[in-house]
């Protein structure tokens, strides 16, 4: 197991503590299992692999250990079934708080449980009895995660290309030790290189990718909050944030994502809100199409009346209003697609969102790029909400928002939908997941969600998009991804039917109207759009936020929305072109989407979700490149046309791009373009 290739380089390069020249030897593993037999065996096996092992038989103790020693461990291995705490919860917590890779284990190899692991963000799942061979390679998860983190960090606002200094013996460092410094350096370098390349490839914007780290996002959120979500324009946000190297475009796209995110959160409620909008009618029909996420988002936004939320959730989750037993398995499958992607990409544990069934997944899938930390925030919020029903707040201002969101969500839980363990766990996740995907999209999601909050009551939900500030700390990193994805689809302002649109939170707002139903998760924004439509101005905000922050596009709510969506979609490679073509695009996407996953049609929220996720992820990648160019999207066109299919396809197309952190490629930096085109639309 000793990869140590190059000691010298390692030692020289690393300024930080060198754990060992022989990575992965010395990897610090924390094992959590209530079964003493297994625990002992694992410990022995890991020691044989030359890892440093700490045993723990209770999750609480494990969390304390982790918290007390933040950098004391490299990876966590945990059993799924434990008496004091569900392994998945631990997984989420760890992912949120410490952002460590977590491997789940169980004697249970049923697909849905494995899926849960994936959606909750586990980086691997081992079936007991665990063989030593399976343990030998766990170091890869640590490396992968670090790599992703570095990548993200690199992209933080202040990191410019120039910051990347060539790192010495990258390869050597990389393999040689667990030394974080070295490894990170090498990874970083690699990442930087990759980033640079990617960037260059993106003809649209040659901006250094901004990595929306947790801190950065926090700053962003507080700036937005300060300004008020409605008034939060990129320029002002930028000023408030005062981060050197951050451009207005970065902020704009991030904002867009954030709004989407918020929307998504409120979207959950949207579904509900659809209920809201159309007052509590039990429109679970449309809702059902909504992804659970949406509902949750909506719920989260706090605006959604618990009931609505519950219903939405029900709708989202199981499509049936109070269906405690969500067809998780289905979702799982779907999530599989989306989450897998996500997970892989992000390496974070986000996902748990399986709750909402697909919807959630969608979210998860989307924001792959989200900063783990940011996600953590989300998770936290989400987690607390869902699982613990605790007031989430913790993450700063934003968390409060998310908390509220989460809390909202919890309510429904009480309902019964969430009660379901799965859902519970999941529900909270939703926000998280939502956040995540959204986060990555960054602002958009957040914003979206936020709006919901404000609006939920209104039914429009989105109007407030701008405000919800901190909804969840969205790790905007890959803002592009989500927003892009979500946007385009979501923007079906045209959907006008509040209900329908709302449901679609996800990218495919249209879903609501159109088949995309499932994709709700993707684009909460869509829902928002719908809402927005109703409130035109608001939509715009949301939409625009992401896309075109250049100007206060608020005016064009629809436009904005539309723009976003279509453009995004379009970019995605869909060539969704012209809004008129949106329909076609949407359908394409939808098709793509479906093809991605199970090829289920829109009707399948789950599929959609998954697809969406995939899409989003992919799309984000793609969107970036293509972005706006297409956007000649006529605002109205969105709504149906886009349908998830288009998105999906777009997303799918992007897949090859390596979804990865969608850095802001997707950002709507190009939004300016979008806007113009969109607006003109």
């Amino acid at each position: 197991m000793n990869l140590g290739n190059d000691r010298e380089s390692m030692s020289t390069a690393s300024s930080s503590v060198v754990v060992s020249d022989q990575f992965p030897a010395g990897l610090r593993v924390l094992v959590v299992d209530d079964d003493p037999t297994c625990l002992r065996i694992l410990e022995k096996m890991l020691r044989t692999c030359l890892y440093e092992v700490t045993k723990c038989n209770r999750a609480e103790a494990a969390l304390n250990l982790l918290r007390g020693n933040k950098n004391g461990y490299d990876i966590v291995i945990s059993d799924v079934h434990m008496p004091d705490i569900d392994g998945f919860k631990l997984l989420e917590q760890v992912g949120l708080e410490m952002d460590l890779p977590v491997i789940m284990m169980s004697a249970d190899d049923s697909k849905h449980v494995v899926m849960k692991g994936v959606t909750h963000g586990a980086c691997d799942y081992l079936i007991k009895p665990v063989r030593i061979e399976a343990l030998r390679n766990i170091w890869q998860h640590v490396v992968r995660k670090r790599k992703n983190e570095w990548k993200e960090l690199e992209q933080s606002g202040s990191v410019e290309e120039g910051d990347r200094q060539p790192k010495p013996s990258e390869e050597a460092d990389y393999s040689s030790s667990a030394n974080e410094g070295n490894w990170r350096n090498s990874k970083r370098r690699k990442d930087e290189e990759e980033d640079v390349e990617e960037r260059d490839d993106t003809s649209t914007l040659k901006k250094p990718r901004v990595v929306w780290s947790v801190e950065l996002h926090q700053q962003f959120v507080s700036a937005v909050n300060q300004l008020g979500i409605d008034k939060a324009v990129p320029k002002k946000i930028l000023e408030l944030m005062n981060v050197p190297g951050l451009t207005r475009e970065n902020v704009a796209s991030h904002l867009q994502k954030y709004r989407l995110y918020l929307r998504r959160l409120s979207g959950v409620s949207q579904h509900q809100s659809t209920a809201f909008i159309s007052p509590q009618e039990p429109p679970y029909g449309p809702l059902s199409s909504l992804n659970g996420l949406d509902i949750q988002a909506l719920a989260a936004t706090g605006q959604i009346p618990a009931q609505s939320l519950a219903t939405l959730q029900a709708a989202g989750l199981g499509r049936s209003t109070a269906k405690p037993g969500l067809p998780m398995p289905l979702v799982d499958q779907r999530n599989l697609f989306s989450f897998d992607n996500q997970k892989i990409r992000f390496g974070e544990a986000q996902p748990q969102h399986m709750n909402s069934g697909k919807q959630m997944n969608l979210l998860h899938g989307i924001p792959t790029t989200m900063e783990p930390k940011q996600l953590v925030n989300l998770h936290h919020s989400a987690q607390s909400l869902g699982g613990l029903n605790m007031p989430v707040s913790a993450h700063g201002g934003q968390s409060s928002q998310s908390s509220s969101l989460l809390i909202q969500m919890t309510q429904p839980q009480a309902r019964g939908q969430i009660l379901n363990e799965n859902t519970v766990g999941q529900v909270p996740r939703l926000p998280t997941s939502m956040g995540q995907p959204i986060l990555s999209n960054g602002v958009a999601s957040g914003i979206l969600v936020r709006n919901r909050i404000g609006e939920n009551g209104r039914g429009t939900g989105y109007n407030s998009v701008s405000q919800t500030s901190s909804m969840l700390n969205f790790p905007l990193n890959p803002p592009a991804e989500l927003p892009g994805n979500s946007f385009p689809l979501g923007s079906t302002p045209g959907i006008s039917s509040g209900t329908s649109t709302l449901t679609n939170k996800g990218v495919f707002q249209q879903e609501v109207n159109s088949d995309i139903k499932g994709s709700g998760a993707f684009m909460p924004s869509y829902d928002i759009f719908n809402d927005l439509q109703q409130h035109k101005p608001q939509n715009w905000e949301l939409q625009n936020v992401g896309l075109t922050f250049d100007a206060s596009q608020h005016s064009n709510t629809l436009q904005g929305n539309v723009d976003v969506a279509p453009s995004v979609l379009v970019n995605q490679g869909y060539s969704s072109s012209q809004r008129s073509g949106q329909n076609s695009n949407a359908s394409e996407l939808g098709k793509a989407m479906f093809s991605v996953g199970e090829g289920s049609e829109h009707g399948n929220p789950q599929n959609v979700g998954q697809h969406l996720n995939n899409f989003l992820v992919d799309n984000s990648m793609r969107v970036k490149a293509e972005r706006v160019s297409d956007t000649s999207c006529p605002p109205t066109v969105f709504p149906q046309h886009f349908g998830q299919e288009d998105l999906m396809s777009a997303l799918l197309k992007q897949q090859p791009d390596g979804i990865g952190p969608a850095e802001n490629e997707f950002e709507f930096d190009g939004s300016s373009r979008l806007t113009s085109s969109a607006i003109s639309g």
Partner: protein
Amino acid sequence: MEVGQMQRRLMEYTKSLFMEGVLDNQFIQLQQLADESNPDFVVEVVSLFFEDSERLLNDLTRALDQPNIDFKMVDAHVHQLKGSSSSIGAQRVKNACIAFRNFCEEQNIEACFRCLQQVKQEYYLVKNKLETLFKMEQQIVAAGGSIPMMELSF
């Protein structure tokens, strides 16, 4: 009995356990983990297994004795027993647990009772066999011999 003979007997005995399915490959994994620093690793782990299993079996007996059986809890216990038995290679115990879980899902009380009996039976069987095995090993070591490594191809 001289060492060589004892060793052969041990080998035969161990082989029979595998043939009968009492133990599976995982047990060999455990044996391979033992080294100079942990020469008694297998004994240590198996002892942990015995302790834990007996506790679980007691819990199971109690749980099935309730007027309102909490199948979830029963299932959780069985699941754990399944996990630990599979980790040490107690194949038959593991299989009995699998069957047990199925009936738990169905909430079939009668069948659960039967399964519990079955699990107990398998457990005592493997316990007995392993204790015998360990004793044989001890005798070999006491006589100055070394424990031969099992090489079974599964």
